[in-house]
């Protein structure tokens, strides 16, 4: 019975969604030995978008390409590169889409002005309210 199961598993494992058969890149699923560097890499990976997946960071995706990207990130961090430099390297190739941390630009400033705008609006509406109380 068990052998049959294994055979069934093998049959189904192979053609699923046209996956490759190569082992993942060296650091796709392996942490850096230095915990401080690994923490740095992890923090960066959580903010990079997996390009093959719908909406996941490369830190939590099973896609092979995400694994290759993780490996790149870890190797570059291990080689002493700055996380933001690595992010920049990827943005240079894939555009802003690849980073979950939007950068301030001519097109994205409203995103960062939004909280200020909301606070200002709240202040205007509230001040008027309490002023009326004061005069009452």
């Amino acid at each position, binding site marked *: 019975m068990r052998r049959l199961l294994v055979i069934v598993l093998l049959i189904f494992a192979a053609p699923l969604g046209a996956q490759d058969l*190569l082992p993942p*890149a060296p650091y796709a699923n392996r942490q850096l030995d230095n915990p401080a560097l690994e923490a740095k890499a992890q923090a960066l990976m959580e903010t990079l978008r997996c390009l*093959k997946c719908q909406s996941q960071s490369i830190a939590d995706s099973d896609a092979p390409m995400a694994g290759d990207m993780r*490996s790149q990130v870890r190797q570059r961090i291990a080689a002493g590169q700055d996380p933001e430099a690595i992010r920049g390297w990827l943005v240079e190739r*894939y555009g802003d889409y*690849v980073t979950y941390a939007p950068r301030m630009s001519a097109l994205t400033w409203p995103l960062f002005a939004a909280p200020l705008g909301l606070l200002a609006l709240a202040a205007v509406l509230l001040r008027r309210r309490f002023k009326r109380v004061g005069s009452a």
Partner: protein
Amino acid sequence: MNVAEPASALRRGWALWLPLALFAGFFALVMVGLYKPADREVASAFIGKPLPQFDLRPATQGRPGLAFAKFTDGKPRLLNVFASWCVPCAAEAPQLAQLAASGTEIDGIAIRDRPEDVAAFLQRNGNPFAAIGADDVSAVQLAIGSSGVPETFVIDGKGVIRHQHIGDIRAEDVPVLLAKLRAAGS
């Protein structure tokens, strides 16, 4: 209790229309989004920039590997990123063969592939490639801003990326690629 308070109503006038205005903005935005559907593909931001330095081992017997040096010989060519495990890659084989027959030089990069699989793939679908490099960890793919297979890049004689075609090459894409190649050559 239900009597209007004209003074206060006037003062709050604009604020009352604000929600509707915001909603109108939202509506306009999603109408644009819905009727001008975004392409789900991630285009390379690396067009107009030179290929990085790389040197890939041969992906299979019978064709040499691929290195950056090859792209600076003054002749424009196509760089096809493919894999034997990718279904649309087989679908574009006739178009690649047609391009190769018209005298275009096509080099390939096989992503995450084993030599025997590449050989079998070429056996089945024909081999339009002059050279095929094996990119086992998608390193070159990442370095040129390619986000999937198949993708085809037009590279000019100095090794600069001039155009990116995402997805399999259909029959109607062949003239476009030829035109891009001519433009890259001039």
